[in-house]
């Protein structure tokens, strides 16, 4: 694990960049945002104890959003290959991390499904 400190407004990573690590917030606030041509959508503001960039632990696909420090923030970074090594050295710990990841991704998928369903039901309301 690597401790990193980010100043206000400093980017932790940008959307589209290759991801290599997960970040756990020790102190401060981090915004997860998506930048489009004319607008910025803030997806979440994460605080102490939360983690982000977890998809980088699973594969090498580019980051799906940008993470920016809203105030001076201290984070702990877990590098993907260190986690892979942990599977052999400390399988139990690695299992716990993967389980948390799976639970979180499941929760997010469920919320996304609900959002999609809500959108579909709004769009399919019959016109009177």
């Amino acid at each position, binding site marked *: 694990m*690597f401790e990193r400190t980010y100043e206000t407004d400093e980017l932790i990573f940008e959307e*589209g*960049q*290759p991801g*290599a*690590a997960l970040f756990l917030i020790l102190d401060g606030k981090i915004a997860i945002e998506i930048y489009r041509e004319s607008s910025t959508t803030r997806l979440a503001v994460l605080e102490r104890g939360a983690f982000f960039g977890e998809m980088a632990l699973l594969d090498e696909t580019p980051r799906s959003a940008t993470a920016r420090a809203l105030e001076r923030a201290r984070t702990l*970074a877990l*590098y993907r*290959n260190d986690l892979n090594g942990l599977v052999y*050295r400390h399988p139990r710990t690695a299992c716990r991390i993967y389980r948390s990841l799976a639970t979180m991704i499941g929760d997010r998928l469920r919320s996304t499904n609900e959002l999609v369903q809500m959108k579909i039901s709004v769009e399919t309301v019959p016109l009177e």
Partner: protein
Amino acid sequence: MSNGQNFEEKERERKVRRKVFYLTFATLALIAAGFLIWKLRGLILPIIVGALLAFLFRPVKDRFNVRWLPHELQVLSSFVAIGLVLFFAFNTLRKHIPDEEQKLEFKVRLTYKLNEKYRQFVAKSAEGKSNPVTSLVDNELGPLMDKINQALKLTPEERDLFLKYCAGYNGKPPIENKFYDYFRANQATTKYAIPEKTSPGAMSPTPPIAAAQVQPTAAEEGTSLESKVSTWMLAPLIFVFLGFDNGQIRRFFIGLVPNRYFELSLTVLDRLDDAIGRYLRGTLMECFLVGLSLTLGLILLGIPAGVAVAIGVAAGLLNAIPYLGTVIALVIGVGYGLIAENIKSLIPGLNPNDLALYVLILVVLVRVLDDFVFQPFVLGSAVNVHPLVVVIAVIGGALIMGLWGMLFAIPTVVVIKTAVATFFKELKAYRII
């Protein structure tokens, strides 16, 4: 000017100051590092060797990675395991290293056989009445044989010791009579070179004073050896310190990297680690294949399995230093081929008297196999370096740094190639360039 604008202006100035400070500091640090590296260049090699040993040791350390065992104890246990393996390997090897009596016997047999072969060759060339050959024998091979005889000549103490062993000495049975006869024949051997006619007053080409100036004194030699030994003491120290390292060094260096390059540096370091690992595994595989080919070839030529394995192991291990394995195999193999008697080859039609020549051909064949098959395809594929680059790198390394240059040529190419390729790829991926 409002307070906000004032603050922004101050922040901008601070940023410029910070940049100037970092730039100056980095330049000074680079100059200091360059100066130190140049001044302490003698330490670079032991440090690299120690680090490479620690790298090779890592899989062993990982084997002892037990959750309930403190890290220091894990490392100590792996050190003990390696120490035990080396102790048993050395003990086994020691049994095959010739003792004093065998060394003397080997020298006597080698001198006798070499002279016998030479005399046979001279007789043949004289029969052929070929003038160029006869002149080559007289002018080149004669003096060469004299030099070999001089190098293999027993000192008066060794002669006395050999005679004692002939009669049975130090609790050992007497040496075979045949070898005593060889010894007597060696004593009777005269010089082959035709002495040059020199004028009575001719002086030695090198004045004695000049020779004394060139030759280092015993004290100088001792000091140089002492400094070399103390420099090389660094290698095991580096090995031990890196062995105990639990990622602190990596964390320290990554900690120096700006946030912007954090993930990039992790990726580059990881790829380098992977490339060096693949190179080391490739080298081990190449050494194994060279050793195996030589061992099988020597067994086919009729050399006893124990000797063939010993030569194969030595040549295979030393093959990590390009060409050294071949030289060792050539010296030991041809040497053994010259003194071997009652050899029965597994290949029909081979003349046992020409064993040394067959060994020479075998070593050359294995060398060719190593250069054109093992190195390019085993090592080349392991590190993804073109076979031509491998060959050029080895020759270039030899020209720049001699033997050590040859040893570190390919790892250096691997590290540079991987670092540059990964660095540029990732810099683009992170949109830095």
